[in-house]
């Protein structure tokens, strides 16, 4: 099981490194969009500091959605998915391995970049650590929930539009608790409970997403 997980995740990481486009797309989108905000709302530090957690979370969420469509599409189009589904490992594990590789290449860069962009937006330093923690807990949930949407929209024309419509509503709880955790830390209210809820959301997605996505993949290769 662990061997199969390493084989699949390792292959996906290697593919991502050689192509390099996925990580770059996500990061460039994240950075550019955040940089635009000071121009849009004005450079006043107090205004920016006030909306910084929201900006960072909303942009991170949109950025992570950008790369979702390709999560299974490549394997679906070239026939690899059929072979993966026949492999002597559960399809649920295949989903989990691919989601892990996807998070490492698109989620983790967001976690690393968020505090840097936070400085740019005058994010209160008291919120920085919580921002990192919240992102580290929230982005895996985004990837896992997104995997369900990506599997469901495989083979659909204009799947990208459908994918956003399916996935965005499910992202909202992560967004709410992600932002409120950072705000709580800034106002000294204690971010603990909110981070726990974020962790709970991630675990819930971890338990549910592999099964839901695997079921959708079986439909797709019919």
């Amino acid at each position: 099981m662990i061997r199969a997980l390493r084989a699949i995740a390792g292959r996906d990481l290697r593919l991502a490194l050689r192509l390099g486009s996925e990580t770059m797309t996500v990061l460039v989108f994240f950075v550019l969009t955040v940089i635009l905000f000071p121009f849009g709302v004005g450079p006043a530090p107090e205004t920016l500091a006030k909306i910084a957690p929201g900006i960072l979370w909303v942009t991170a969420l949109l950025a992570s959605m950008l790369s979702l469509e390709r999560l299974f599409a490549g394997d679906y189009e070239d026939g690899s998915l059929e072979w993966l589904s026949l492999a002597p490992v559960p399809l649920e594990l295949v989903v989990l391995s691919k989601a892990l590789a996807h998070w490492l290449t698109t989620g983790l860069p967001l976690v690393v970049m968020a505090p840097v962009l936070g400085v740019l937006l005058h994010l209160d330093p008291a919120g920085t650590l919580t921002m990192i923690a919240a992102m580290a807990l929230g982005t895996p949930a985004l990837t896992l929930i997104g995997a369900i949407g990506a599997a469901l929209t495989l083979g659909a024309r204009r799947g990208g539009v459908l994918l956003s419509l399916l996935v965005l509503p499910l992202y909202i709880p992560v967004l709410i608790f992600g932002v409120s955790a950072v705000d709580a830390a800034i106002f000294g209210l204690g971010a603990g409970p909110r981070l726990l809820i974020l962790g709970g959301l991630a675990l819930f997605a971890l338990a549910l997403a592999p099964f839901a996505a695997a079921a959708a993949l079986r439909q797709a290769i019919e």
Partner: protein
Amino acid sequence: MAEFAGDALACIRAERLVFQGLSFTLAAGGALRLTGPNGSGKSSLLRVMAGFIRPAAGSLTWDGADVTKDREAHGARLAFIGHLDAAKPVLTVDESVRFWARLYGAEDPAATTEKALEAFDLLRLADFPVRLLSSGQRRRLALARLLAAPAKLWLLDEPTTGLDAASVARLETVIARHREAGGLVVLATHTDIALPEAETLALEDFAPEPAFADEETA
């Protein structure tokens, strides 16, 4: 002993009946050649056999047990090569085959990969990225997975597409060896490929009767 059988199978694709009343039996070491004009359902039958599509009617059994009940166990004993080569352009030939060897739990992925590449004369290309391969070489790469990821039952959909005569001969050798070891092969093809003592299933024999015939009998 391994026995793969289908009884009175029917398949519906896009609300159209593709074939019906199709039965076959395949014992260990046996081979089944599927023939028929384009669109007669060869690929659909192979996909039904692989468990990707549920048969609309009839049953599919392995040693008497219904395979649609346990798709995972069935998947573990079969290899399916469809029209697509499942090759990633940026990986090398060696990496592609080794991935499947590792995923299918080979004891020694490196040695298994080497053997598989050798059987299809790909060793010299081992370090080439897949995007530089010709279509025939890609096809051979796809076929090499048969040896990297061993399975009892091989389902091959037009495996000879794009292959030169020497490669077809190699495939024939590989299939013969697989059958000697008790493996089963189902192969859909338009070209000549030597399959000694293979049974032939002509898909056009199982085409649904035209609609007007139904009205007459009704």
